[in-house]
């Protein structure tokens, strides 16, 4: 028996994750049906949680009339993601994109406009124009919070969800949360659950060795992926890792999307361009990696050729938004955009659909493969969906969940599942000594770097699996001496789950695809005959990690073969000398 303190509450909809997509899911559920009880569970504090805790400097995928059509956008993302997309879901995003921008604008989020009040769109992608700067985008979280209050969404801060609950018929029935400061349990029974837990951004270990010096908010450590997996949901294309070109050591965006439209660009150590397009894709990362391999690195973001007014404007945007501490980082290094280009490097690996395509499988209604379970944002499988995608798909999930709930009774769950989970959660608190969460996490993530980073080698990934199994055995010695350490101990287990999934998914797809993201040395060619499909990873009835192929649904926007190759021709043909 457990000695856990447990409170149980009931809701129509439980949203897990109060960052970007989660709040919008809660908002749109309440707008669809104000009589619903919607609970938003957040591991930190909704006021400042998630990827956009300090706001955002721009929309990277705005589909604005006059600049792009939803059809053009769907085509761009299909090409950027080597054809493996569920186009209906990308189309649902694309058609929801402009209405969401207008909605956020009405709520008080500030977007850049020209003198006549039109959105000031910029081109960064290879083909279309989708970037809308937000030089005053620092208040996004405040705007969301006000709306959550207005609509009376119930918020539970500092509760980390650990496992989903299901009914005997397979429907979702709620989730178990544990308070990160008291280790008390909160069981939320719900008719529908929306997962919006962000990326698995604490998977690889940053080159600096600082465990929390990640690209993603370090709280986004893959809890959502792990919970979906253990509940039996299918996860899609996890081998399509997130790997980003970042400011070296700082590990934040250097921001070619912001600086590109002003004339900044990615250059090698000769100051020469080597890629035609700075939009993040697997192919772009492959060219970045090749440049480093060739000895022409480091790679830099070059701005020292720009006019003073331009550089001041870039500084104003970059040093007040999203990751404002980057100004402080540059200052200590003596980096001045006017004098010296910013050194970049290739990030550690993670899962994230916000930038690549690794996520819990969702259809165009944000439904996972479990009835009543939804996913949105960085952890759901809609590729390249960025912040605006989290808002749009979160909104889709909220509205769909509201109608799903309408005629449903609150499902019952098995009390035994709750007791078993409480035992798992509390096990590290029952030991007086043993292994610390930090060292077990560090070792897991160091092995991720050693064996799972591309170029992916079969023999190395198989070693990784053996080493992860050893760490899993060591969990019997994991020790947490207070609630904070227990919080980290639970996160460490999510990270280990994601590490296992990254290895298994990468081994399953025996071809290379998505440029650097899934570059397999033993299978260097793209093999459309066998692998023009999604790969699904799931826990089977016997509890084993299993895989299957999912057919790519017929396109709603046809793409010609020659168009499909556009992102494969990113390397500058003959490098031009810098001006």
């Amino acid at each position, binding site marked *: 028996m457990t000695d856990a303190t447990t409170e149980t509450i009931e809701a129509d909809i439980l949203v897990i994750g109060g960052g970007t997509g989660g709040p919008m899911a809660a908002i749109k559920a309440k707008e669809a049906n104000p009589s619903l009880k919607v609970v938003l569970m957040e591991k930190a504090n909704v006021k400042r949680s998630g990827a956009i*805790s300090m706001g955002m400097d721009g929309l990277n995928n705005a589909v604005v009339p006059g600049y792009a059509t939803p059809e053009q956008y769907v085509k761009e993302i299909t090409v950027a993601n080597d054809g493996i997309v569920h186009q209906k879901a990308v189309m649902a995003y694309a058609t929801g994109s402009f209405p969401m921008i207008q909605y956020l604008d009405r709520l008080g989020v500030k977007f850049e406009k020209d003198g006549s009040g039109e959105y000031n769109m910029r081109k960064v992608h290879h083909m279309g124009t989708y970037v809308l700067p937000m030089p005053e985008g620092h208040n996004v979280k405040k705007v969301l919070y006000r709306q959550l209050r207005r609509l009376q969404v119930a918020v539970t801060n500092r509760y980390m969800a650990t496992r989903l609950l299901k009914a005997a018929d397979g429907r979702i029935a709620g989730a178990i949360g544990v308070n990160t400061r008291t280790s008390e349990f909160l069981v939320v029974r719900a008719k529908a659950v929306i997962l919006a837990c962000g990326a698995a951004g604490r998977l690889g270990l940053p080159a600096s060795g600082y465990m929390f010096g990640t690209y993603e908010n370090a709280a986004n450590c893959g809890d959502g992926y792990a919970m979906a997996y253990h509940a039996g949901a299918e996860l899609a294309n996890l081998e399509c890792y997130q790997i980003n070109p970042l400011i070296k050591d700082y590990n934040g965006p250097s921001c070619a999307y912001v600086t590109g439209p002003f004339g900044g660009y990615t250059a090698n150590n000769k100051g020469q361009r080597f890629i035609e397009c700075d939009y993040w894709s697997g192919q772009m990362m492959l060219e970045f990696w090749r440049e480093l391999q060739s000895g022409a690195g480091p790679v830099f973001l070059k701005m020292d050729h720009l006019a003073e007014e331009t550089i001041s404007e870039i500084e104003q945007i970059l040093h007040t938004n999203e990751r404002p*501490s980057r100004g402080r980082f540059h200052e200590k290094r003596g980096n001045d955009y006017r004098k010296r280009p910013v050194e970049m490097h290739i990030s550690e690996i993670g899962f994230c659909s916000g930038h690549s395509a690794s996520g819990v499988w969702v259809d165009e209604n944000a439904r996972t493969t479990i009835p009543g379970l939804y996913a949105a944002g960085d952890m759901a499988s809609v590729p390249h969906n960025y912040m605006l995608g989290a808002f749009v798909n979160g909104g889709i999930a909220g509205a769909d969940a509201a109608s799903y709930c309408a005629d449903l009774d609150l499902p019952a769950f098995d009390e035994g599942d709750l007791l078993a989970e409480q035992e798992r959660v509390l096990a590290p608190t029952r030991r007086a000594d*043993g292994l610390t969460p930090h060292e077990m996490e560090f070792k897991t993530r160091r092995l991720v770097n050693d064996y799972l980073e591309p170029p992916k080698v079969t023999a190395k990934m198989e070693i990784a699996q053996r080493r992860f199994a050893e760490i899993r055995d060591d969990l019997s010695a994991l020790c947490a001496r207070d609630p904070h350490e227990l919080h980290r101990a639970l996160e460490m287990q999510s990270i280990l789950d994601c590490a296992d999934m990254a290895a298994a998914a990468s081994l399953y797809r025996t071809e290379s695809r998505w440029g650097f993201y899934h570059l397999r040395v033993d299978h260097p060619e793209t093999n459309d005959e066998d692998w023009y499909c999604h790969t699904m990873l799931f826990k089977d009835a016997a509890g084993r990690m299993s895989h299957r192929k999912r057919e790519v649904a017929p396109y709603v926007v046809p793409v010609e073969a020659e168009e499909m190759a556009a992102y494969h021709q990113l390397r500058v043909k003959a490098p031009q000398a810098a001006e």
Partner: protein
Amino acid sequence: MPIITQSSSAAVVIDDAKCIAEKGCTVCVDVCPLDILAIDEGRKKAFMKYDECWYCMPCEADCPTGAVKVNIPYLLR
């Protein structure tokens, strides 16, 4: 295995003269996404308790008295 304690420098620095935690303020502790700040029960001042900083800066931005300064952690500075 017994557990030992190791030290590291604190990236988040609180100016005790400006910090008003003794008046009940917990804003920096409340907003930290990684939950690494705490109030020292003896001194009644905020401090960085865990070396787990994402240098994101809500603690500094939201502090009502400007008492918090976020430095880049030494390992990546």
